[in-house]
């Protein structure tokens, strides 16, 4: 359970969420992105293809990250949401706030 960050050749920070994004680990994700912003990273992809669960505070953390990235003139995308997770974004209308791609590949191509 945790996050793996790797930099793709196009300069995108790909953060893989392993398992779940919840009240217990959202702080870790926020920190990871903040540090990358401090190191002048500006393109972020959060990938959920290995995640099965996001709670409301996990959604809150994503909203917070997206604000920070935007404030720095950066770009944030999400990918790999399964059917349940995608419906979570729909019912909270957060699908209108985030750029969501089916796969990492599609998301990376969109930067």
């Amino acid at each position, binding site marked *: 359970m945790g996050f793996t960050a790797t930099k793709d050749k196009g300069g995108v920070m790909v953060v893989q969420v392993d398992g779940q994004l919840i009240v217990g680990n959202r702080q870790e994700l926020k920190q990871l992105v903040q540090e990358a912003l401090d190191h002048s990273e500006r393109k972020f992809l959060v990938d959920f293809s290995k995640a099965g669960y996001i*709670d409301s*505070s996990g959604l809150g953390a994503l*909203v917070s990250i997206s604000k920070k990235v935007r404030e720095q003139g950066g770009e944030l995308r999400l990918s790999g949401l399964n059917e349940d997770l995608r419906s979570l974004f729909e019912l909270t209308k*957060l699908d209108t706030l985030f750029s969501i791609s089916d796969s990492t590949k599609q998301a990376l191509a969109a930067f």
Partner: protein
Amino acid sequence: MTQPIRLVVRRTSDVSLPVEVSTRIPSVLDAVHESVEILARHAFAGLTPTPECERLRNKLKTLLCESLANAIVYGHHEDPTKFVGVRIEVDTTMVRVHVTDTGDGFDPAAIRPPLDPADLDRETGRGLLMIHKLADSVSFNPQGNSICMTLRRP
């Protein structure tokens, strides 16, 4: 979670009769997800794991996580000596969850979820929204410190 939780299961072997699983959970946010995992497992022990059952179990987990987090944070201010009561009833037609804290409660009618485009940037306020969207019915006691959520079984 290092401390084991203790849950009480009341049931017959007849799956057509109600099963009741109850427990008390200390007000520690880190314990929520693991407790929920265990509760869901025992509430559905004995059901054939069909895809519908899996979806129902996922919904149940979300209802439990969100209501427990609220009870712990707003009801008990994360005081680990205070316990949140959880009771799950499962019968052939529905799954019903009661989550009760000992706090002051609140007025659920006064809560506005951040659904307006201008509000989407708000970081909080989506817990009750998720509960209302996923559950088939939601009710509170008059004091507002006990929530009852029902899922119809397909």
